[in-house]
C-alpha cells in the first residue's frame, strides 16, 4: 500500500494567481470607527430574509434583537450599535435587488456596551441546543457564502459526520481575514470547535491551512487544548483550495459525489472565522455584531484588517480608509469570486470577507475576445476536470441541456479558474453561471408542468 499513501495531498489542476497577501497579512485587526448611520438589509444571507421586530423611532441597545429568523433557513439580526431606528425602508444590496432594511442612527456618546443574551453552556447543552444557539446568534458562513451555519451543521437522518473540517485556507488573492483571525483569535477558535464537535457528533476536527500561512498553522498547533481531538493540516497553495470539495479531497482524499454535499462523505466544513465567532458569542448568548474585513487593493490608501460593525455603509468605509482618485472597480470578496459593486450605498454584511479596490490600470483588459483556440489551458485549470472549452462552445450555441447532461455543467462551482487562464479572454465562468441558471429554471418549469 506504500504507493497509495504517496498521493500528493492536494486536488487536481487549479491555478496560481499572484497572492498579494503580504500587503495586509502582517497588519493586526483594528477596530473600525462607528458610522453615524448604519444600514442593515434583512437579506444578507442565503434563505428567507429576517423579519423586523422593532419599529421606527425605537431606541435599541447594542446586541439587541432587531429582526428574527424568517424560517428555518434564516437567521436573526442584532443591533451592531446602540442607537435609534430612524427608518425602515428598502435598501440596495450587492446583487442589485432591493431588500427591506433598518436605518440605525448611533447614539453619539454611547459606551456601546454589548447586551448579553442566554448563554449556551458547552458542558450541559445538547446538540440541538447548540444549533439553536448558533441560529439565535445570527451566524452564517463568514467565508463569503453567508449560508446559515446551523443548517449546514445539521447532520441529516441516517448520515454520520466523522470529521469536522475547519476551513482556514483563504485561497482568494488579497484577502487576509481568516489569516489574522487564526493568529489573533486562537482561543475562540478552539472553543468554537468544541461547540461544533458536539453539535455534529464528529469524532475529530482538522484545521486545513494553506502553506502560505505557516505562522498561523504553527500557532494553532501549539495552542490545541490538551486532549482535544484537533489536528492542523497544511496543504499546498493553490486556488481554489478553499472550496469545500477541494479541501476535503486535499486533506482526506475523499471525493464528494457529483450533486452531493460534504456530509455524503461524512464531513462538515466550517469556515475558521465562523468557528471563532461561535466560540466567542455562544458562551454569552450574544448575536453577531461585527466581522473582520480585509480592505485592500492597489486603490486603497490605508490597507488593513478591520473589525467593522455589520451594516456600515461601504461609502463610509472607503471614506475612512481613503481611495485613489483613479478608482475603477470595487469588489466585495476576493478578485477571483468576488462581486463588483455598482452602488456604494450598500453595506458591509455578514458575508463580506474583503473589500478590494482596483484603479483604472489594475482592471483586466478584456476589450478583445478571441475565438477559442482549444489550447487546453482551461482543461488544465478546472479543479473538477470539466472541459470548459467545449462547454463554452456549447453555451454559445445555447445547447444548455447538452452541457448539463453530457458535460456535467451543474458540477461547476464557478471558481473562475477557466476564465482566469483563458488566453482568448472568453468569459467562460460567466457563460456557465448563466447556463446553470437557465437549466435550473427549465428544470423547475418542467417539474411544475
Amino acid at each position, binding site marked *: 500500500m506504500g504507493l497509495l499513501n504517496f498521493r500528493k495531498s492536494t486536488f487536481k489542476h487549479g491555478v496560481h494567481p499572484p497572492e498579494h497577501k503580504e500587503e495586509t497579512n502582517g497588519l493586526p485587526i483594528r477596530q473600525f470607527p462607528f458610522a453615524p448611520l448604519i444600514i442593515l438589509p434583512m437579506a444578507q444571507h442565503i434563505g428567507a430574509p429576517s423579519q423586523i421586530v422593532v419599529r421606527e423611532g425605537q431606541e435599541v441597545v447594542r446586541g439587541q434583537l432587531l429582526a428574527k429568523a424568517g424560517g428555518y433557513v434564516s437567521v436573526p439580526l442584532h443591533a451592531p450599535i446602540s442607537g435609534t431606528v430612524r427608518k425602515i425602508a428598502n435598501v440596495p444590496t450587492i446583487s442589485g435587488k432591493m431588500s427591506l432594511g433598518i436605518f440605525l442612527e448611533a447614539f453619539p456618546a454611547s459606551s456601546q456596551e454589548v447586551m448579553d443574551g442566554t448563554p449556551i453552556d458547552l458542558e450541559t447543552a445538547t446538540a440541538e441546543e447548540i444549533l439553536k444557539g448558533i441560529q439565535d446568534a445570527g451566524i452564517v458562513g463568514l467565508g463569503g457564502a453567508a449560508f446559515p451555519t446551523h443548517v449546514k451543521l445539521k447532520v441529516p437522518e441516517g448520515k454520520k459526520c466523522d470529521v469536522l473540517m475547519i476551513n482556514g485556507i483563504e485561497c482568494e488573492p488579497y484577502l487576509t481575514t481568516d489569516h489574522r483571525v487564526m493568529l489573533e483569535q486562537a482561543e475562540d477558535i478552539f472553543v468554537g470547535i468544541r461547540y461544533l464537535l458536539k453539535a455534529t457528533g464528529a469524532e475529530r476536527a482538522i484545521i486545513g491551512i494553506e502553506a502560505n500561512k505557516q505562522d498561523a498553522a504553527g500557532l494553532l498547533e501549539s495552542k490545541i487544548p490538551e486532549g482535544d481531538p484537533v489536528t492542523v493540516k497544511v496543504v499546498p497553495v493553490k486556488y481554489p483550495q478553499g472550496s469545500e*470539495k477541494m479541501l476535503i479531497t486535499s486533506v482526506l482524499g475523499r471525493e464528494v459525489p457529483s450533486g452531493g454535499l460534504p456530509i455524503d462523505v461524512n464531513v462538515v466544513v466550517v469556515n475558521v472565522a465562523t468557528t471563532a465567532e461561535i466560540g466567542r458569542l455562544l458562551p454569552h448568548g450574544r448575536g453577531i455584531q461585527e466581522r473582520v474585513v480585509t480592505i485592500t487593493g492597489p486603490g486603497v490608501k490605508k490597507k488593513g484588517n478591520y473589525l467593522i460593525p455589520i451594516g456600515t455603509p461601504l461609502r463610509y468605509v472607503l471614506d475612512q480608509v481613503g481611495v485613489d482618485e483613479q478608482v475603477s472597480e470595487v469588489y466585495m470578496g476576493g478578485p*477571483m469570486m468576488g462581486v463588483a459593486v455598482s452602488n456604494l450605498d450598500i453595506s458591509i454584511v455578514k458575508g463580506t470577507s474583503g473589500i478590494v479596490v482596483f484603479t483604472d490600470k489594475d482592471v483586466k483588459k478584456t476589450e478583445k475576445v*478571441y475565438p477559442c483556440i482549444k489550447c487546453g489551458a482551461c482543461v488544465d485549470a478546472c479543479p473538477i476536470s470539466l472541459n470548459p472549452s467545449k462547454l463554452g462552445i456549447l453555451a454559445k450555441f445555447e445547447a444548455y441541456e447538452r452541457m448539463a447532461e*453530457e458535460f456535467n455543467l451543474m458540477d461547476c462551482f464557478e471558481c473562475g479558474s477557466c476564465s482566469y487562464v483563458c488566453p482568448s479572454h472568453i468569459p467562460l465562468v460567466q457563460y456557465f453561471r448563466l447556463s446553470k441558471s437557465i437549466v435550473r429554471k427549465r428544470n423547475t418549469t418542467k417539474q411544475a408542468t
Partner: protein
Amino acid sequence: MLNKTLNISTSPHIVKGIGTDDIMQNVVWALLPTAIFAVYSFGLSALMVLIATTAACVLTEHYLCKFSGKESTISDWSAVITGLLLGLTLPPNFPVWMAFIGGVIAIALGKFIFGGLGYNVFNPALVGRAVLQAAFPVAITTWYPAFLDNRFSSFSVSTFTAPFMEPTVDAITGATPLSAFKFDHVVTPAYDLALGLITGSTGETCAVLILLGGIYLIARNMMNWRIPVAILVTVYVLSGILHWVDGQAYPPPLFMLFSGGLMLGALFMATDMVASPITPLGVVIYGFIIGLLVVVIRIWGGLPEGVMYAILLANAISPHIDNLIRPRVYGTTKSVKGS
C-alpha cells in the same frame, strides 16, 4: 470623494495575462531562427518563397474578412504563422506565383471557410501544401542544393516563373536525404541532418534550430510538449525496431528523426492547438497516430515523405479523440459517454 461612476465586470477580476495574440506572436519568434537559417543556406530564392506565402496568407485573411463584412483578424498573428509554416515546407526554388497561390488556399480553404481562427479542422498551412502538392507535383519535388556560392546574388531559375507556367527544370538540382534513401538507398549522416547541411525544403533542414524554437515555446507554456514528444518517441521506437530487424532495408532511427519535415511537423504543425485534441491523454494518442503514419508512409508508401499526410489525417480524427477521451469529472464514477 467617490463621485466617480464605478465600473462593473464579472468575476474573476484578474486574468493570467497571456493572450492568444501573445501566443501567436511567440510562435512567429520561435520560427524566425529556422526562417533565417533557411535564407542563409538557400539564399534569395528561399526569402522570396517565405515572403510570397506570408504575404498571401495575411492579405487573403485581411480581404476575406473585409468582403464578408467582418473586422480584419490579421492582428492575431495567426495568418503570419500559417504563411511562414507553408513557406518553410516548400522547396526553396519553388516558383513565387505558386507559393502565393498556396498561401491564398491555406487561408481560404484551410481556415476561413471553417470560420476562421479556432474553427479550422486541419492545419491551414498543410492544407495549402497538400493542394500545391496535388497541383504542382513536379515543382514541389524539385530540390535546390543548399550553400550555392551565388545564392545571395541571384535567384534560382524557377523562382520567377511566369504565373500559370510550369517552371523549367533547374540545371542544378539536389536530392533530399529521404528521396536519396527511398530511391537510391543512401543514408545521410545524422550529424549533417541535425545541423541542416543538406538539401530539403526551405525550413525543414536544420533540426537543431527547430528544436530550439520548440523548446522556447514549451518553456513559455505556449506549446503542448506531449505532442512532439509522442510523435518523436513513436517514430524513434518504431523505426528503431524495424532497423534492428533488418538494418539494410530500413533506415536508422536517428536518420528518420532528423530527415524531412518531421521536426518542423512534430513541433510546429502537429501542435496547432485548434486541430489537435485538448486532453493530455488524447494528445498522446494523437501524437502516436502521427508517428505511426509517418513511419508507415515513409517506409511502405509511394512517397519519400509522409509527415504532411500523417498530420492531416490525425487532424481529422482529433475531434473524435476528444469525444472518446474524456477525463473523469470530480465526484462522478465514470465519464459520461458522448453521442
